[in-house]
Each structure stands twice: as C-alpha cells, then as structure tokens.
C-alpha cells in the first residue's frame, strides 16, 4: 500500500533578480509501509527541499504529493500539521534535542501535540520508548551529559513515541563516528521494521545508504533510482555515489 507518493513534483524559488531557480525537477517517488529508502545527494542537490516536501512542511511548486492516497494539497494547514505529528517522525543530523530538558522530557515532546490517551500517558509512553532503546538508566540526564550516540538514541525515541508510519532521517549519523553511526542505523532499522514504519534516510554517505532496500540519488534536483549493486560498488571503492 502506498504511504507517500510524489508525482512530477517541482519546487522553485525566486532569486533576488526575480528569475526562478528550480531546485527540484519532476520528482517521482513512491514509498510504501515497511519500505526502507535511501536518498543520496551532495550538498546543494536539493535534499533539504525534498525533506521539507516529504515531511509535509512545504508545498511543491507543481506536481502532487499524496499521503495515504490523499492529496496533501487538499489538507488545511492544521490538518497537515496534525498529520505530520501523528504519522511522521523526524530524526536530524544534529539530534536537535532541546537544551535544559531531560532525555525523558525530550522524548515526551511530540506527545504534547497528541490528544486523548497519548497526551495524558505521555510520561509512561516516553519512558517505555527510552527503555526499549536502552536508555532506561538515562531518563533524567540532560543532553549535554549524554554521548553523541545516546543523544541520537533519544532523538530516535522522540521520533517514535507517537508510532509514526513514516520516519524521515536526515543525515542521522552525520555527527557520529563510524561505529556509533552503524549502531544507530541498526537500531533505527530494527525499530522501524518492528513498528512497520517506512524509513527514508537522506544521506551523503554510501555506507548508510547501503543499509536501505531501495536507493535513490538526488543530483541537481533530479531524483533517479540507483541499483543496489551500484551502491555496494561505491561502498567497496570508498567513493561517493
């Protein structure tokens, strides 16, 4: 079943001289429940813009985006925000944990925007999630007292507390060493698979991309599929995709 579908999506911005700059060109992408997709691209290739669109944070200049086979452009702003909160989980390169709040408080954050049982049981849900990813002993730790890997684990717990159907990981290992990065990706893959959520990893690292089952390369605004063989060859040759 198609969870997220992009059809001929373009995104342009206006330059100071009023000429348009096309960042994304005719993007077609389909992600289903349980998929693990990697999108590789260099800086300036349009990854952030694509992430905005995939995360329902921005609207395309042309083309259509469907979420659960529903046209996203038909959603009102509040509906779109709530859908993002309930169905999409974000993981960022710099973890983006909120300072001054404990691991538990950070993990609880998305549940503040939930309603009903999710909202009222937020502490219990966040605690369970942190325990599940091995941070049960660090609930009251401030981010600065956690290692990079632990911080990213908290970020993963935060992205999963509402049981999202789509996880968007933006350079999830970019700020970690290779070993920790591999651990984090293994964890992410495991929890995504266990929950049946689709996982889209945006990265410039061929090693991380190789962990996905479906691969794409974004180059100058054009998204093109890449074969698994090409990805593994790039990993073996230690060259960028």
């Amino acid at each position, binding site marked *: 079943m198609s969870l997220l579908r992009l059809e001929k999506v373009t995104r342009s911005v206006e330059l100071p001289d009023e000429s348009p700059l096309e960042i994304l060109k005719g993007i077609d992408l389909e992600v289903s429940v349980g998929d693990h997709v990697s999108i590789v691209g260099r800086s300036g290739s349009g990854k*952030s813009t694509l*992430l*905005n669109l995939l*995360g329902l*944070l*921005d609207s395309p200049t042309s083309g259509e985006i469907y979420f659960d086979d529903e046209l996203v452009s038909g959603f009102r*702003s*509040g509906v779109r*925000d*709530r859908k*993002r*909160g*309930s169905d999409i989980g*974000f993981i*960022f390169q*710099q973890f*983006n944990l*909120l*300072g*001054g*709040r404990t691991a538990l*408080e950070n993990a609880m*954050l*998305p549940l*503040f*925007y*939930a*309603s*009903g049982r999710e*909202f*009222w049981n937020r502490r219990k849900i966040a605690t369970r999630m942190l325990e599940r990813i091995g941070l049960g002993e660090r609930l009251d730790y401030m981010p600065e007292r956690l290692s990079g890997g632990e911080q990213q684990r908290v970020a993963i717990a*935060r992205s999963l507390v*509402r049981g999202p159907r789509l996880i968007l990981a*933006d350079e999830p290992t970019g700020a970690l060493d290779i070993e920790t990065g591999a651990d984090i990706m293994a964890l992410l893959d495991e929890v995504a698979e266990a929950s049946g959520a689709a996982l889209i990893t945006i990265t410039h690292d061929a090693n991380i991309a190789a962990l996905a089952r479906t691969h794409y390369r974004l180059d100058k605004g054009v998204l093109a599929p890449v074969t698994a063989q090409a990805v593994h060859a790039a990993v073996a040759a230690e060259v960028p995709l």
Partner: protein
Amino acid sequence: MSRILTGLWGAILEAWSELRIHKTRVLLSLIGVAVAVAALTAVVALGQIAYQAQVESAERSSGRPAMVAIYAYTESGEPVSGEAMETAFDTAVERYAVEYSSRNGYFDGRVQFPTGVEQVGGQLVDVDFGTMHRVELAQGEWFTDRDENRLAPAVIVNEAMWEKLGSPALATHPTVKVLGDTETTAVIVAITPSSQFDTYPQMIMLYSAWQRATTPALVASQQPSYEMWVPPEMSEELLPLLKRDMAGALGSDVIVDATRQDYLAWEGFEQSMQILQLLIGGGSVLVLVLGALGLVNISLVTVRQRIREIGIRRSFGATAGRVFFAVMMESIVATAVAGVVGVIVAVLIVKSPLVQDAVSQGVVDAPPFPAEAAIIGILAAVGVGALAGLLPALVAVRVKVIDAIRY
C-alpha cells in the same frame, strides 16, 4: 473537545516549561517589565494622590462643591446688623431647603497653657461646618446639636494645642481656660490632626456657644461670612435668587454678594489639574514605552535562539496556532507576573513614609493607594507582554522548519 482541552493544557505546560528552563531570560524580562510597571504604577498613584490631596486640601479650605458664601455690606461702610443678617440668612436657608449651612467667623482668645498664657486663633462655626468642609478629626467627635446648649462650651483643638496642653486623654473631659473680657472654661471634645508644618495652636468653637460666653460688644463687632452647601447643578440658579431675597430683607442700602468659593468655581484649579494629569499621563506613557522597548529588545534577541526550538516543535506536529498561542502566552504570563511584582513594589514605594511625607506635604489625610493605578499597572504589563510576544510569535509562525532546524 478532547483536542481543545489537551491543546490548552499542553500549551500551558509548554509555556511553564519554557519559563522554567529559560530562567535567566525570563528574569531579565521580569526585571525590565517589573521596573517599568512599578514606575508607571507609582507615577499614576502619586499623581492621583497628589490630585486627591489637592482636592481635599481645597475642600478643607474653601468647602465642598458647591459652597456659596454670602457677604453683605453697605456703600457707606456702615456695618450690617448681625441680627438682621442672621435672620435673612436663616430665612433663605429655610426657603430654599438648604440642608447644610454655617457661619464662619474668627476670634482671638488668650489661652492658659501649663507654660503660660498664649494668644490662640479660634474659628467660630456652626454644626454643619464639619460636613461642609470635610473636617478630619484625629480623636473625638465633631460638634452635635446638643453641644449648642452646653454650659461649658465644647471646643475642638488642633494637635499642636493639645500637645501644648499636655496631651490629656479626651475620656477625662479635659478643659481649657479661654481668657478675655470674660473667662470661659471650655471642654475639649475632639482634636484635629496637625501636619508637621502646623505648629501653631488653633481651636474651633460653636458660634452660638461663643456668643453666649463673650460680651455683647464683641458679638456685635463680629462679621462672619455665611456659607451654604448646595448641589452644584443648582448653584447657578440659586445665586441671583439668594442675592435678591437677602437684599430685599436687609434693606435697599445693603448690597448682598453671593458667590461660589469652592475649588470647582475657580477655572484655574481645573486647568492646573489638567496640566498635572497631562504631565503624569505623558510621564507614565514614556515610562511604559521604555519598559516595552526593553522587553521587545530582549524578545528580539531571544527570538533567534527560539527559532530552532520552534522548528523542532513544528516538525513534531505543533500547529501554527499552537506555536503562536504558546509563545504569546509565555510572554503574557511572564509580564503578568512582572506586573504584579511591579505593583507590589510601587505600593511599597508610594506608601513608604519618605514618599508620603514628600507627596502629602501639608495634607493630613493622605488618600489610600489608588486601585486604579494598580489595575492600570497590571493591564499595562499584560498589554506590553502581548505586544512584545506578538513579534516573536509572528516570527515563530513563519519559521521555515527545516531551515530553522539546520540553522
């Protein structure tokens, strides 16, 4: 319904969490706003106290509005008969159903103090005078009708005179000897407060009691003024009628003058009060603008660091409305608390003896701290909070989430 409830509660928890975490920034905002509100409230309160003090002072000296003073004189300079004047005045009071009226005269008496005999100024009034001139008493009760017939006249003395007499307890019915052509022993029934500048002994006696106690020659020489307290809206109509009636009763050679003497009849008073209010208002607005600028400044500085946090919240499902509400509420809650602190500080400042002495110079009955000033202070704080919160809230709503997160 459940979503609204959880949204509201969630926003409150969020705002509280923000305030708790950003203690330093909140404290800075609190200090700036609290100082501005304290200054604003204090200025408004002091202005109102000064205004009230002026009004009360004016009412004590020239009576409450509308106070009509009636004088009668002859072109030849011959004194008008006191008896005839009193009869004409009493007839007018009765005819126009005036509720409060009084004579107002002065005498000099020599008083026996423990330290010797001293000349003391005395005022001669009727019972109604106390109400008409808002006379305040530090102890005892103002004259009553029964005091008119006392054998030993009742007298009210000021604190300076009472202290000079050795501060006797009123319960002991202390007496004072007033010497003159006749010697009178008067009973002190009340004490008027004296300000720190009012060091001369003074006394007040009922006109009728004084008439009985003194010589006919002195009574005849007394030319008191005659006062009526009438509703202000009636005064314009009443003045020509009083002149006509009393002149008719006193004879063709007597000229009667009836004029309002209260502060409202003096245009300059209103003008000076308007200038005072304008200055106070201008000062208050200036203080508030400075406070608001300080807060906006802090808000602008912090908005940059908050953009990232807001971006994160948006990415996890916070709607634009929720972010706007939370940021605004955080600002308003903080400034409301600052407002309360500011008002408390203002009350402490305004009610401090040092400030009270400076503001209420010469005024015995300083008015209480005006509730209006406190309300204005808190409303101003909340208003400033809303205005200062609006800018970051608008910025927060317009945040481009991924840009903010990668910022």
